[in-house]
C-alpha cells in the first residue's frame, strides 16, 4: 500500500488517475504559487550572484510539493511548520514577494528583524508559518505539540510539518512521529523526498525501501505520491488533513521529486549529481505538466498563463528593488526579543552598543562568503 505512487497527471499532463474536484480558483492559485516560486528563485539567484543577498535555496523542480500541500490547509484554523524549501506554501497563501524579499535581505522591514539568514521566513498572517529553524528536524515534535494543543482544546485544526528526505534521519523525525502516533495528534508529516540531502543521495540516507514505509514504525498510515504532480500531492494531503480533523490521527506522506538545482546558491551539484539523473527528471517538470493540464481542461488559456507568468516575474523584480532600498534594522534589534522584557544586563549592553557605535563609527563589515 505504502509502496504505490499516487499519480493523477503523468509527465505530459495527461490524467492517469481520477482527478479530484478542485475549484478553478484553487487551480489558478496553485499555478500562481508555482510560477511565483520559480521567478522568486531566479531573482534570488541573480541577487546572490551580484552580492545583494548572501544566500538562497532553489526550489527548481519541487514547486508542486509545497504548493499542492499548502492548498489543502485552512488558514483560519491550521498551522504550517515549513521547511526552507517551501516558498510556494507562503506564496499560495498570499504572502507577497516583497515580504518574502525583505527576509531575503534581512532589511529594516523584515518581520524577523534581520536576525535570520535568507529563506528562514516567519509569518503569522495569512496563515501561521512557524519560524523556520536551520537545525534540521527540530520542528517535527514542535508541530506535534501545536497539533496536540488543538486536540486538547477540542478544535479541529491541523498542523502540517514539511521536511526533506535528509530530515528523516534527524532526531526530531523519530520523536515527532513517535509522539504523534502515541497521542493521535492531528499532524500531517510531509516529506519532500527530492533524493538529495546536499550531496547525500537517498540510498545513503536510509536503507528503507521508501520513506512512506517508515510510517508503520509509528503506527500511522504512509502514502507515496508523485511530487511533481501537484494534483496528486493536493489530493494526498487533503485526505490526510481530513483524517486528522476527524480525530483519526497523523499521516506520513512521501512526495517523490527531484532537486533540479543546487542545494543552495553556494552549492555546485555537478560534483555529485549524475547528469543522466537530471536529464531524466527534466522530462517530469511539475510546471509544464500542470500547465498542459490547465490548458487541456480549459481552465486557463496559454495567453492567460503567459500573462500570469509575466506578472509574477514583475512582482519579484519589483520586490527586489523595493527590498534593496529599505536599509538595515535598527541597532536595538540586536537586543530586543531575547526575552519579553529587557533584563538589566542586556539593557546595559544595549546602551553601551548604541553609544559605542555612535561615537566610534559604524560596525566594520568584514563579510566572508557563505559556503552553503
Amino acid at each position, binding site marked *: 500500500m505504502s509502496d504505490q505512487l499516487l499519480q493523477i497527471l503523468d509527465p505530459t499532463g495527461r490524467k492517469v488517475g481520477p482527478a479530484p474536484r478542485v475549484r478553478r480558483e484553487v487551480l489558478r492559485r496553485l499555478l500562481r504559487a508555482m510560477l511565483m516560486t520559480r521567478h522568486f528563485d531566479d531573482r534570488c539567484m541573480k541577487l546572490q550572484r551580484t552580492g545583494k543577498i548572501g544566500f538562497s535555496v532553489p526550489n527548481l523542480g519541487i514547486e508542486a510539493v509545497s504548493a499542492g500541500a499548502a492548498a489543502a490547509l485552512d488558514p483560519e484554523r491550521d498551522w504550517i511548520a515549513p521547511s526552507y524549501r517551501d516558498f510556494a506554501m507562503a506564496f499560495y497563501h498570499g504572502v507577497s514577494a516583497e515580504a518574502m524579499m525583505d527576509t531575503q535581505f534581512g532589511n529594516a522591514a523584515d518581520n*524577523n528583524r534581520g536576525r535570520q539568514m535568507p529563506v528562514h521566513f516567519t509569518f503569522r498572517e495569512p496563515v501561521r508559518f512557524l519560524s523556520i529553524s536551520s*537545525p534540521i528536524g527540530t520542528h517535527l515534535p514542535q508541530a506535534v*505539540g*501545536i*497539533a496536540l494543543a*488543538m486536540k486538547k482544546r477540542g478544535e479541529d485544526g491541523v498542523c502540517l510539518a514539511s521536511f526533506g528526505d535528509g530530515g528523516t534521519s534527524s532526531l*526530531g523525525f523519530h*520523536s515527532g512521529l513517535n509522539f504523534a502516533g502515541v497521542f493521535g495528534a492531528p499532524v500531517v508529516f510531509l516529506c519532500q523526498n527530492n533524493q538529495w540531502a546536499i550531496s547525500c543521495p537517498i540510498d545513503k540516507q536510509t536503507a528503507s525501501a521508501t520513506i512512506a514505509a517508515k510510517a508503520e514504525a509509528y503506527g500511522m498510515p504512509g502514502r507515496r505520491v508523485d511530487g511533481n504532480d501537484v494534483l496528486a500531492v493536493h489530493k494526498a494531503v487533503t485526505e490526510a488533513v481530513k483524517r486528522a480533523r476527524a480525530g483519526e490521527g497523523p499521516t506520513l506522506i512521501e512526495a517523490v521529486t527531484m532537486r533540479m538545482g543546487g542545494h543552495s546558491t553556494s552549492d555546485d551539484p555537478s560534483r555529485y549529481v549524475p547528469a543522466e539523473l537530471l536529464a531524466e527528471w527534466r522530462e517530469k517538470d511539475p510546471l509544464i505538466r500542470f500547465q498542459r493540464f490547465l490548458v487541456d481542461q480549459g481552465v486557463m488559456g496559454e495567453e492567460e498563463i503567459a500573462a500570469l507568468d509575466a506578472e509574477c516575474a514583475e512582482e519579484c523584480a519589483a520586490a527586489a528593488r523595493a527590498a534593496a532600498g529599505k536599509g538595515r534594522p535598527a541597532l536595538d534589534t540586536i537586543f530586543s526579543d*531575547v*526575552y519579553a522584557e529587557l533584563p538589566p544586563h542586556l539593557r546595559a549592553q544595549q546602551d553601551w552598543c548604541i553609544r559605542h557605535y555612535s561615537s566610534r563609527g559604524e560596525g566594520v563589515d568584514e563579510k566572508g562568503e557563505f559556503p552553503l
Partner: protein
Amino acid sequence: MTELTLVQAVNDGLKTKMREDETVLVLGEDVGPKGGVFLATEGLTAEFGEERCFDTPLSEDGIIGVGIGLALNGMKPVCEIQFQDFIFPAFDQIVSEAAKFRYRSGGMYTVPMVIRTPYGGGIRGGLYHSQSGEAYFCHTPGLKVVVPSTPADAKGLLISAIEDPDPVLFLEPKALYRSFRQEVPEGIWRVPLSTVREVRPGDDAVVFCYGAMVPVCERAAERIAEARGAAVRVVDLRTLLPLDEEAVIAAARACGRVVVVHEAPRFCGYGAEISALIAEHAIDAMEAPVVRVTGFDTPFPNTLEHYYLPDARRVVDALERVLDYE
C-alpha cells in the same frame, strides 16, 4: 500555612497553578499514575485527568519539542525531565529552539514553558544521577534558569516560572527534596525571578551559593561565627539567569571577601561567572582572592560521592582563607 518538604512544595505549586489556569499541562516520563520517580507530580493525573498530566514515551527530545509546540499554541506546559543528567538529548530543543524562538521570529512566536528537573548529588547516583549541569544552560540567552533551595521558594519561584512569558529551566536540588520542612503559603504565592535571597546577614565576607549548597554554606557560616565571631553573609542566588548582577556586585563590594560555592565541577562552572563579574566590577573593593569551592573537575563518582561534594568543612576552609588574607 502548612509545613511542606521541598518536593511537596513543588507538587503544591503545580496543583495550585493547574487549578487556577487550565492551560497549564504537565508532561514527562512517569509523571502520570506513578506521580514521577520523586513523587513531585503525585496526584495530578487523579485530580486533573490524563489530558492535563500525562506520561510520554522515553524521549527527552520529544518531551521538550512537544512542550515547545504546546507553548507556541496557547498552552503552558511544565515538562519534567526525570533526572537532569538525561536532559542532554533535548539540549538542541532547549538551546537552539525554546531559547531562540522569540528572537528569530521577531517576537511573533514565543515559548512560555517550564522545564522542571531534579539535579545534583546526594543520592548515590553516580555519574548519571547526580550531575549539576546549570552552567551548560546559563550560557544561553533567551533561557531563564531558576534554582530554589527552600520549600517556600520552590513553590513561589515555580509559580512565577509558569507565569513567565519565556522558557524557564527549573532545577530542583534533589538532595533537599525531603531534607527539611518549612511553612509554605497556601494558594497562589509568587517569588519574583531574578532576585537573590539573603540567607544570613554579615559584612566580613560573603558566600554566593544556590541549591543544595545553601544549607551547607549556612552551616559553614554558623561555624565561622562560633569559631571566630566573623559575620559571613550567605546569598542564595536563586535565579542564575538572568542573574541579579547588581545585587551580587553590591554584596561583594560590601564584604570585600568572597567565596563562591557550587557542586558542579569548577572549570567553566557557574561560579566562574560570579568571579568574573567581581573581577570586572568590584576588584577595587576586594581584600582577598575570590575563592571557588566546587566539585572536582571529574565526572561524578559513586562510592566516593561524599568526598567529591563540597561540605561545610570545605566552605569553612575557604572562608578562613579569605578572612585571613592580608
